[in-house]
């Protein structure tokens, strides 16, 4: 340990995962923490704290109110953080009360059906909803109004279906759970992330109708994008970090640089491959703007579907 100005940087870093162990935020903290240590960017292993509550709101409030100038704190964030900020689910706290450092990977959104489903393309499914909304049900890993639910609604809106409250959606405990409901025939289609379906695709139990990215995902070239099927919807669940608002610009840039090094490392590339994440690196200054835009778009959509007033 050195003392003086450089001291904070060499103290142990802490990464808050705003959820119980086992989810995406926990994964982000543990992977990034592990790789930072392996690359020698930090002297001591990054300590992961699980702070579940309020869908990440508890951790957000904790950072804003109690740790606003802690230079050794990073917090896992994702599209879910942005969705909840957009829906004002963090008790009035706003995105600009912290600083978003960057995203270093993204989980592309997917729509899948069981292998024996009569629906062969996204168009089949969308047309079925349009002709009889009660004949199709969607299962996803987020609660109603959450990101998985929004993916379906965005597609249907592009298809000109406006009666979105008629769309049947059940929120279950995670994407893998949603997929078992679809394979078991309890729900028609699953809306979720690519990482959640990789194993089931390989075993041939499900068919992916569409991936919600600009271009087809490397390694999964046979899954068409929603865009090329005529529904211009892009929805990726990015994985990244935010830090307290009150830290110095210098420290912010240091952390951003560390994150960039993690993104470029072989270990991270391997971890992304194993977990079905697509490359998606946006680190540093312009990321905050990008997040703000995402939040604005989500807010508009949420208002349209009536999740918020």
């Amino acid at each position: 340990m050195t003392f003086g100005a450089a001291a904070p940087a060499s103290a142990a870093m802490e990464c808050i995962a705003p959820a119980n162990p086992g989810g995406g935020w926990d994964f982000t903290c543990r992977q990034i923490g592990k790789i930072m240590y392996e690359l020698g960017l930090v002297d001591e292993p990054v300590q992961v704290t699980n702070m579940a509550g309020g869908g990440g709101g508890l951790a957000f409030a904790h950072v804003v109110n109690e740790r606003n100038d802690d230079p050794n704190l990073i917090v896992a964030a994702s599209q879910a953080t942005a969705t909840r900020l957009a829906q004002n689910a963090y008790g009035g706290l706003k995105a600009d009360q912290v600083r978003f450092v960057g995203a270093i990977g993204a989980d592309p959104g997917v729509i899948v059906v069981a292998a024996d489903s009569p629906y062969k393309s996204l168009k089949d499914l969308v047309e079925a909803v349009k002709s009889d909304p009660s004949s199709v049900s969607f299962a996803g890993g987020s609660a109603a109004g959450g990101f998985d639910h929004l993916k379906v609604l965005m597609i249907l809106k592009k298809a000109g279906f406006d009666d979105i409250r008629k769309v049947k959606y059940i929120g279950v405990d995670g994407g893998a759970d949603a997929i078992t409901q679809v394979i078991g025939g309890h729900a028609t289609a699953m809306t979720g992330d690519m990482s959640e379906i990789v194993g089931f695709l390989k075993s041939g139990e499900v068919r992916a109708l569409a991936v919600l990215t600009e271009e087809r995902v490397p390694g999964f070239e046979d899954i068409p994008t929603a865009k090329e099927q005529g529904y211009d919807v892009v929805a990726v669940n990015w994985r990244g970090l935010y830090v307290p608002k009150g830290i110095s610009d210098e420290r912010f840039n240091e952390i951003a640089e560390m994150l960039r090094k993690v993104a470029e490392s072989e270990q991270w590339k391997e971890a992304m491959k194993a977990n079905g994440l697509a490359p998606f690196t946006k680190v540093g200054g312009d990321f905050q703007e990008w997040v703000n835009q995402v939040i604005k778009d989500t807010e508009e959509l949420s208002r349209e579907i009536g999740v918020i007033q």
Partner: protein
Amino acid sequence: MDILTNLALGFSVALTPFTLMLAVIGCFLGTIIGALPGLGPSNGVAILIPITFTMGLDATSALVLMTAVYYGAMYGGRISSILLNIPGDEPALMTTLDGYPMAKQGRAGDALVISGVASFVGAFLATIGLMLLAPLLAGITYRFGPPEYFALYMLAFCTLGGIASNNQAKAAISACIGLGIAMIGLDNTTGMPRFTFGNMHLMDGVDFLVAIVGLFAISEVFVFIESHGQSTSIGVRLKKVTVPVRDILASGWTMLRGSLVGFIAGVLPGAGASLGSFLAYMSEKAIAGDKAGFGTGNPKGVAAPEAGNNAAAGGALVPMLTLGVPGSGTTAVLLALLMTLNITPGPTLFAEKPDVVWGLIASLLIANFVLLAMNVPMVKLFVRILQVPPHVLLPGVTMVSFVGIYSLSGSYFDLLMMVGFGLLGWALRKLDVPTVPIILGILLGNNMEDSLRRAMVLSDGDWTYLFSSPISIGLWIAAVVGFVAPIFLRPFLRRPQAITD
């Protein structure tokens, strides 16, 4: 045979002196974590994950250590249930019902040995089941949709009243309090918060561990303070510790049945170890009948839930490995560990990473034998706890409770809530209302409501959907038989029980 070659592969990976040492350390730590109230298997495993990185363990070694902790914690939960009447974790709840009365009769050693053997039987059979049937069993998960889960929870609920044999109305009130508490939090079907009073701490609902520790451990402290240490239930007589061979043999079938029930509950992701031990206990109670004295210190009442919850712990690994669906909080943490090690569980895991899967199975078997070898002789050590005077023991328990609960979410709010539950537990004790159904209400209520609401969304509110599959019809029949039959049959079979309180 395929399985034997696979198992040989597994043991070749897992059976090195280093991994064996890890298994022993893991079992020991797990037992302690399980025994401490407030520290359950899932936060225990989560706390220890960083150690595997610091130690630079490879995938197999990390898995051996963590599964040893997992199984160890499942074993350890029973210790404080029996000795202190405080469940070490939620699946150990049912063990308090007969375990603590046994301890009070001076048979603490017997209860610990019997439950240790039952834990072994349950975990061993579940590991065998995992080994032989895992890919096959994954199919069961597909068969369970919202209506089937709802029927399963109804079955559990219909037998709840029988938990307190003296006054079923009080058990029902207690269960309703639990159900009410379960309503708190984000409503999954609409995405809106309920009964949170705008408080973000309540958005995710009330954690069972907070309720358990409050109702059992903290309320004990209040009773102790109130009576100036005169009438605490902690501190029981102690006899010489022997191996109760006769009781173990007599509960052989109980252990087998408990293992089966627990294993099936474990395999179903929406059910889990708590439901497994509950159903194992209630089915044994039903088989044995009222005369067997369940709830007053029957060894079978200790054997059944322990076999059930340890079998469920093994069963929960089936959907975790074959589908990537965690069946319990702890398997969710293990899933996270696997993913950090770049192993993604799913339908192709068994084919693609046989060394990991069979290494894991081998390490489960090793951990189980280590635990049996460690636990039975250690009973002598554990029962010493009873010789610690309550005025020393209770502050220690309180301290561990506070630290354990704080480690859950790092928020003081949970601590306040825990003390609140302590007051509730104290008041209910005065009124002689059993507290076990409250926990079960919280535990089952959430899942039951979610299943019902999902079923109603899927069917456009058509009630007949709830009875639309053979599985759900079968479960409904069992539920009706379990609930209604005793009411009508009792007058013919024997005199109604007197309400004694």
